[in-house]
């Protein structure tokens, strides 16, 4: 691992203008978050705490009100374009419904001007890797939720991003499919160990997947309040690792830090 982090959010604050000139809302306040090269970092926090905001800042889709984003030591300026070295897997369905599976997978190559024949060949290869070989000519609406997520994963990974940003990518899936996808993600990640920033509200998922778990406070003014190293052995099987004493101890420890924030967020939502 090099000393320069792959992704560094330095003292980032995001304020959103209030509606109709109302008071502005501070979603994220003075947050510093670093992901080393090859590190899998999960960010957990109560719902509505600004996790996605942090990810959009890291992607260059959103300019922070103050603070800086550095990608391998280079300053990222959102107004000059998105983070070119990152792939982003969205929580919502982001496939193009008018493109077939294979054409969705190769969209990134398409945009980069890779010749069609080569792009298709690489696309077929990726379809095979995510277990969708033979489904390339289907449209997204002809696929199940799990298949669409795999397609999105292939679409994101085919451009070989150095940093992978994931926003609760599996939250819409049923528990079984979800654990399958988590294992597949770990297997794909183990091949070339890219840096991953994984957002989730599910602490178990975070511990099972990550090298490090960062806990965020409840909003507004979200900021990291805890940073836990997960030294469980790899390769892991996400459904089995949940039963180990080491996992349970970590879960207890992190949940202790999180619980208060979750309750705070819950109270705030009830009051609103």
């Amino acid at each position, binding site marked *: 691992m090099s000393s320069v982090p792959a992704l560094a959010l330095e003292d980032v604050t995001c304020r959103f203008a209030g509606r109709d000139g109302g008071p502005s809302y501070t979603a994220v306040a003075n947050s510093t978050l670093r992901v080393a090269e090859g590190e899998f970092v999960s960010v957990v926090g109560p719902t509505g705490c600004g996790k996605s905001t942090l990810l959009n800042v890291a992607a260059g*889709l959103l300019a922070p009100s103050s603070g800086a984003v550095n990608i391998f030591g280079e300053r990222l300026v959102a107004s000059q374009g998105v983070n070119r070295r990152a792939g982003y897997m969205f929580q*919502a369905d*982001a496939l*193009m*419904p*008018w493109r*077939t599976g294979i054409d969705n997978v190769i*969209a990134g190559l398409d*945009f980069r001007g890779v010749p069609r024949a080569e792009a298709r060949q690489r696309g077929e290869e990726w379809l095979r890797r995510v277990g969708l070989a033979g489904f390339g000519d289907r449209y997204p*609406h002809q696929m199940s939720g799990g298949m669409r997520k795999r397609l999105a994963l292939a679409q994101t990974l085919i451009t070989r991003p150095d940093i992978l940003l994931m926003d609760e990518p599996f939250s819409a899936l049923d528990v079984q499919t979800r654990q399958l996808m988590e294992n597949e993600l770990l297997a794909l990640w183990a091949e070339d160990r890219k840096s991953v920033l994984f957002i989730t509200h599910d602490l178990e998922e975070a511990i099972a997947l990550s090298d490090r778990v960062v806990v965020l406070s409840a909003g507004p003014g979200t900021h990291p309040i805890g940073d836990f190293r997960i030294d469980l052995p790899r390769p892991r099987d996400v459904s089995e690792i949940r039963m180990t004493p080491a996992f349970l101890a970590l879960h207890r420890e992190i949940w202790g830090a999180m619980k208060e924030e979750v309750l705070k967020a819950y109270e705030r939502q009830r009051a609103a």
Partner: protein
Amino acid sequence: MRLRILQVLILCVLVGLWYILTKPGLIPPFYFEQDNRAAFFFGEPQKVLDVIVNWFVTGDIFVHLGVTLLETALGFVIGAVFGLGIGLWLALSPTASAVMDPYIKGFNSMPRVVLAPIFAVWFGLGIWSKVALGVTLVFFVVFFNVYQGVREVSPTLIANARMLGASRHQLLRSIYLPSAMSWVFASLHNAVGLAFVGAVVGEYLGSARGVGYLILQAEGTFDVNTVFAGIIVLTVCALLLDAAVGAVEGHLMTWQPRASETEKV
């Protein structure tokens, strides 16, 4: 199949009623005083058919139909292209759209058919005054649909394409355009009809050729059968054009889920 039989049955009943109620001497007159009056006002189906057959056998209709269809096609294509282009432009540039907003609303609220006489003065009595009227009618239908279509594109889809490295131009081509297309096609069905209205109303107000001209001439001599014949020919043409748009749509929009489709794995 059952549906088709029912549809044909309804047509037969309507034409049959038309025949029975208008044939002089078939039933005693119950509304008009003389038994040939109903035929005078409403025409007679077999005579209408005679006129249509005669038109096509002698080939008299082709020059008129050709002119009307040419005006319709030109109005449709020019209006649709402008609607698509300006719709995309305004939807993607909020400033321009804010500036143009009152003008667009104004032109859209205006009863544009009243422009027909002005177009006749500007473009003469040839086909271009009819095309111009068709364009003004078609443009707004397509424009508003494209505008709406582009505005409704999911922000996630745009963000995803940007993260995958799409340039502004590529965003337009692979996200905005296809996404707006389903709205555009919905509007094209309306637009074909309106292009037709533009052509016929234009001909009606002053022309030397076209199906609208034929109808106008026939009205001048109280020849109701020919008027109805013209209306029927126009209706069939409009249906054919609509089917053509539908066929193109079906071909281009294969990606859209159909309600009946239960193919899933």
